[in-house]
């Protein structure tokens, strides 16, 4: 099992000079590849280029096309759906055991940009088998089906959101005062983080928030250092919780994995993985989905007003936001073997990038794709949160976002933007929100 062979942290140690140079080189190459107008390279640059325009160019460049970065990119719904469902397209290289680390030889040789830094310790490059097992053992809590545990999660969510909404004043920041705190608190309650550790957990989650971006887009050295330190910190925190649950099980996520995954080789390792992924992926994806849903709704006051007509519309709003403004825009995979996709023959080891945002607006799959439609019929196959690590938190993120919409619509009905949404730089995957100022009075 991959997690049992988790490498020692020493293997990840690099001097500031080594790591800094590595990040600088990767960043330099995203710029270099962008000079020819390559829309995927420009997406990874994550600069001022219009993301809607880049998204369209990525889709229109062909069903599956090779970017100057080396990656095969698709923004077509059909190919994207096929790629995301293909077990031969994995999060890691089939022939590279251990950390997914790529060492750049020279500053002018085309560097391998599929795993900018190894995030194995955060369980972001796990195998399909691991993910399948984790999803199964966590399903009683994260699966989204009914049941007593899920009902408990729903009630908890309602309480957390009501408290957060009631704390807001005449004006507040959606990310800082609502989305991030509720996502962090909901995750903490899933894991049963004790009150004394909540502050540490929140600080760690904040630093972990760049993880999905850092895998594809080099972050500054200091941000990368904080990320890798936070990975170790959350591992230690979760490992302590797992240890405690082994003797005193509860109805939390970690106890569930320990119980339902008891046939696994190491249920404790699986619980660690699921717990760490909750902090690394669950929190940021949930906060992002809340932000994107509210941003889409508040930009359309008529639709926001309509939500008052029926609480059931919240689910449709979240589903449409997943399509319209994905919380995870890019999904990167490595071909485990030679394969054909989108009319191209790809060699083993090729990187395939699905631009979820582009695929979700493919006019061949969606009627009026650039229109945000609360009533869009379900089942048209929007592709957000269908990766192995994102789908694990699909039901959780949906529940939190629906609860956010319902709670804010009910308690802050005249909510409106008080300024532009400011997004983090170097955030091509998440489009991480820094600031989202809102006013609660007309």
């Amino acid at each position, binding site marked *: 099992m991959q997690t049992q062979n988790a490498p020692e942290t020493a293997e990840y140690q690099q*001097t*500031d000079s080594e790591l800094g140079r590595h990040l*600088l080189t990767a960043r*330099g190459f995203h710029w270099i590849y962008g000079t020819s107008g390559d829309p995927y390279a420009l997406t990874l640059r994550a600069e001022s280029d219009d993301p809607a325009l880049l998204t369209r160019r990525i889709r229109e460049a062909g069903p599956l096309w090779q970017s100057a970065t080396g990656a095969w990119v698709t923004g077509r719904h059909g190919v994207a759906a096929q790629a995301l469902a293909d077990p031969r397209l994995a999060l890691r290289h089939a022939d590279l055991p251990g950390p997914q680390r790529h060492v750049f030889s020279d500053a002018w040789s*085309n560097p391998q940009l599929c795993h900018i830094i190894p995030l194995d310790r955060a369980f972001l490059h796990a195998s399909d088998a691991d993910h399948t097992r984790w999803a199964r053992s966590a399903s009683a809590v994260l699966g989204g089906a009914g049941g007593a545990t899920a009902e408990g999660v729903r009630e908890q969510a309602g309480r957390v959101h009501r408290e957060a909404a009631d704390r807001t004043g005449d004006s507040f*920041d959606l990310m800082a005062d609502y989305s991030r705190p509720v996502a962090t608190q909901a995750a903490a309650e899933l894991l049963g983080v004790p009150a004394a550790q909540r502050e540490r957990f929140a600080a760690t989650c*904040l630093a972990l*928030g760049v993880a999905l971006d850092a895998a594809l887009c080099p972050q*500054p050295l200091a941000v990368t250092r904080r990320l890798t330190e936070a990975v170790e910190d959350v591992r230690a925190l979760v490992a302590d919780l797992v240890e405690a649950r082994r003797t005193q099980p509860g109805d939390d996520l970690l106890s569930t994995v320990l119980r339902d995954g008891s046939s696994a080789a190491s249920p404790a390792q699986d619980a660690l993985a699921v717990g760490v992924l909750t902090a690394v992926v669950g929190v940021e994806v949930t906060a992002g989905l809340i932000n994107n849903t509210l941003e889409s709704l508040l930009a359309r006051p008529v639709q926001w007003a309509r939500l008052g007509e029926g609480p059931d519309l919240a689910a449709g709003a979240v589903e449409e936001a997943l399509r319209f403004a994905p919380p995870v825009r890019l999904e990167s995979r490595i071909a485990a073997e030679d394969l054909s996709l989108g009319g191209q023959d790809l060699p083993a080891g090729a990187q395939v990038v699905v631009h979820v945002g582009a695929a979700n607006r493919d006019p061949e799959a969606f009627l009026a794709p650039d229109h945000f439609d609360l009533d869009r019929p379900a089942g048209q196959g929007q592709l957000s949160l269908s990766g192995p690590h994102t789908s694990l938190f699909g039901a959780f993120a949906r529940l939190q976002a629906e609860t956010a919409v319902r709670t804010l619509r009910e308690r802050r009905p005249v909510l409106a933007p008080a300024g532009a949404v400011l997004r983090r730089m170097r955030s091509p995957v998440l489009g991480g929100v820094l600031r989202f100022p809102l006013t609660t009075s007309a």
Partner: protein
Amino acid sequence: MRVLLTSFALDAHFNGSVPLAWALRAAGHEVRVASQPALTASITAAGLTAVPVGADPRLDEMVKGVGDSVLSHHADQSLDPDTPGQLTPAFLKGWDTMLAATFYTLINDDPMVDDLVAFARGWEPDLIVWEPFTFAGAVAAKVTGAAHARLLSFPDLFMSMRRAYLAQLGAAPADPAGWDGTAHPEDSLGQWLEWTLGRYGVPFDEEAVTGQWSVDQVPRSFRPPSDGPVVGMRYVPYNGPGPAVVPDWLRVPPTRPRVCVTLGLTARTSEFPNAVPVDLVLKAVEGLDIEVVATLDAEERALLTHVPDNVRLVDHVPLHALLPTCAAIVHHGGAGTWSTALVEGVPQIAMGWIWDAIDRAQRQQALGAGLHLPSHEVTVEGLRGRLVRLLDEPSFTAAAGRLRAEAESEPTPAQVVPVLERLTAQHRARGARRPGGTSPCVS
């Protein structure tokens, strides 16, 4: 005093330091020139003492690998901070990011910096004079406490861009979530210098980019505004490292107006592209009642379809010997050629298309001492018309003469030496004085 000069291994960037090195040596100071081994032959050919550091930076492979992309970002881009709409945030960030990733860190790689610091620790220079991209010199100075200065051989547009970029970064909204832990996470050059200095336990400050002062050999009319101390110095042509030999034909005055055509030496000896359509250039002079001296090597001659009767082809001739006999020069825009023509008072057609070559040529044109013709815009008619103007209209020669006088009004390298002695005494860290050594500075 002990003076350590350093430049990465490229003649075009080293040559500008040779006359100052001679002046320091002639004044009795100890001088060493540190560079990668590839420059050792050039350093010793200039009569100086070489200190090889690090390994050769493989610039040619870099240019072959990524040159097109990096150059295309900068081609036809004015770097003049006064030209509106040019120094956009996207341009400056690309400039900073790409050059830090592929150039600054390549020519100042860790082994080179380590070797330079180790040498400076042992030899204990009082002053380190560094070529403005050879930041290793600043690192060695900050680690050892030596005074340090940049030596400019081309207009300091780098610093104008740096200032504009830092101002843009400073104006960007701060990040409330605390992602931006460092002062300027998007400042690639600053980040790299921060962790490079950090290897020696020395904190980064902007002095590692600016030097404590700059010695500027560029005439005042071409200096962008500076907010750091500048010591002006006259540009004295060295034109190395090729053998400087006066050929027979150059010993008699020309019978017709003489025009020099040259593409410089860098494109010959590196992968840096020659952008000049030299065949068109020679077609443009055909039939004019002039004598053209074209300094072209075999590879450049291979680009010619025809050599007009009024063209003398030579492989190499020292420009400082040739240009006093010339009425005009047509060249690729490089700094060494441009500077030599300027101090010789020769009107120029400069075909610059990138970096400061564009701004030098444009400013020269604005000052009436020459004309700018970007190399990709060269046509036979366009070039011929410009050359005829340069030869026929006395205003060009008069303006070139004014620039020559301006250049000559600056102190010579020998006159600058006492200024450097004084500044070194001011800036040098007290603790860096050699035990038992002589006083580092002439009083």
